């Protein structure tokens, strides 16, 4: 078990390192205006070159990468140029994380409870009314772009239920729509997966044996089918929780929630390169860590897991 954790950890570390390097390289392609702010056009060529040199942007890429890791170990993600002049990136980001996380965790919990329950009921009443309704819901969420249906939820949710459009820390009513919106995709996803796992389990041979033992169908569902189907669901949990850090770009923007996602949109529109770079790195790392933790969780719950060579998982 420990060896598995170690192996998986080093795998993730390598992937993380490669991802960071690749992203870093991509960053070198960012438009140069992003480093200068308003005065860009007024600077002469020599001044631009000098400024870039001072910022260390003319050094060879491996030197830049090295510097980056050194700074990272000290907790320095660079300094914002345009968004908040001369404020360290970490300071800009820090107050925004809690917003994303609170919404994210609430939405994840809601999605888990609602989604898993829905999926279980759908599997049990397969082919009947609830299953069909649930399937229609999943189809809608998956087919129609989220950008579209979330818009409509904001539109009609605010008018039908008399809810405020924009987020306000002090008005609880303004929290409802964004939180529910955030969970919709998760509900569809979890419902679909758990239903699929359960239906798969129901066809397995050991379920036949359980029936031949004389177990009533209800007990089989709970003790064997559900228990077995929930295990593979575990792998999605850490990623879901961690992704709350990144926040939902679209929803935060729609409701003006001062979170991480909204921040990314802002800095892209304002062209603040250090901010863009830092945020992109955070978002990528969060994903990798989530997958790693998910695999560990799976190894804990499923006694059969051994590390298989060369598996392109997920």
């Amino acid at each position, binding site marked *: 078990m420990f060896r598995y954790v170690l192996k998986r950890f080093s795998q993730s570390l390598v992937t993380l390192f490669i*991802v960071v390097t690749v992203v870093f390289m991509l960053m070198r392609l960012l438009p140069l205006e992003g480093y200068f702010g308003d005065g860009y056009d007024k600077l002469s060529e020599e001044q631009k070159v000098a400024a870039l040199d001072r910022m260390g942007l003319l050094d060879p890429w491996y030197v830049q990468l090295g510097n980056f890791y050194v700074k990272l170990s000290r907790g320095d993600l660079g300094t914002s140029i345009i968004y908040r002049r001369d404020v360290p990136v970490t300071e800009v980001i820090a107050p925004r994380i809690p917003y994303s996380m609170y919404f994210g965790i609430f939405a994840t919990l809601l999605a888990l409870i609602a989604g898993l329950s829905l999926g279980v009921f759908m599997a049990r009443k397969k082919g009947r009314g609830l299953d069909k309704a649930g399937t229609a819901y999943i189809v809608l969420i998956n087919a129609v772009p989220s950008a579209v249906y979330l818009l409509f939820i904001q539109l009609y949710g605010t008018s039908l239920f008399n809810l405020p459009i924009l987020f306000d820390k002090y008005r609880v009513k303004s929290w409802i729509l964004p939180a529910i919106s955030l969970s919709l995709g998760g509900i569809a996803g979890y419902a679909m997966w758990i239903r699929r796992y359960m239906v798969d389990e129901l066809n397995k041979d050991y379920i036949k044996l359980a029936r031949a033992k004389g177990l009533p169908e209800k007990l089989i569902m709970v003790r064997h089918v559900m228990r077995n189907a929930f295990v593979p669901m575990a792998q999605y949990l850490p990623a879901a929780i961690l992704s709350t850090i990144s926040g939902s770009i*679209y929803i935060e923007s729609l409701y003006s929630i001062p979170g991480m996602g909204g921040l990314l949109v802002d800095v892209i529109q304002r062209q603040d390169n250090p901010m863009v770079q830092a945020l992109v790195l955070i978002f990528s790392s969060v994903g990798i860590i989530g997958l790693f933790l998910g695999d560990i969780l799976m190894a804990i719950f499923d006694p059969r897991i051994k590390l298989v060579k060369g*598996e392109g998982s997920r």
Partner: protein
Amino acid sequence: MSDSLFEFADFDENASERIGYSDYSYWRSTVKVFLKNKIAVILLVVLSILLIFTFIQPLIPGQNSPTKIHIDPATSVQMRNRLPDSTFWFGTNSIGQDLWARIWSGTRTSLLIGLIVGFFEMLVGITYGALWGYVRKLDRVMTEVYNVLNNIPTTIILLLMAYILRPGFKTMIIAMCITGWLGLARFVRNQIVIIRDREYNLASRCLGTPAGRVIGRNLLPYLVSVIMLQTALSIPGTIGWEVFLTYIGLGLPVSIPSLGNLVNEGRLIMMSPELRYQLIFPTIVLSIITISFYVLGNAFADASDPRNHV
């Protein structure tokens, strides 16, 4: 009962073989199962009509250009925000352009993007996936590449690409192509790995079946289902990303109407109830397209699964 019945009957060896004759054709069965799915058939008809109309529309006499700004001859003022009437079937937008023309033009653009991206995804995805699954030596390397690419969130890549290359038609296509093929490659690879070593393929090879036939009759039917599903799903996917990117400000320029543009234009004025039609019309068209592709893709994938065949 006459005693003559107790004489021996003629024994025809071949007659007994005929009892178990099976009249099975893979594609015929696929179509049959598909047609049983009523919702899918209805959507297929609806979508076909919509698609045909989308491309015929400019050829119909009396259609306006999607970019032309209409000016009221009486007042010399732009015909802004007109509600749907007999001249403008979907009304006009905030600068006086014919929404009906814009929507169909936008649909064409979005579909074009979707098709190009989908085609590219198929090409690259299948090739990469097939090599990945079939050639054992490449498996390790390709898996690592996949893991790295998969871990970078698509959102980030798209945003970055659009940010770096500047928003535009070509950028959007390039960016979506880069991120889209991974999923299909993974499916194709998994299928090939599973099927390649199955006994019936080994048996086929032992019997001397040429490789082309093994691939064509054993592997292909499984792959078709997965490929159709992925390709059909990629169209709603591309449209979704397009709407998202346009919202962020990294989408197509306003001069090229697209479903993403239209939805976002509609969003800007969605708070005034009487102008909501500008959001609703593009949304309806978009929804019909995305839902149809999604449902049809899944329905075809189910129908082409031999296990569902009669």
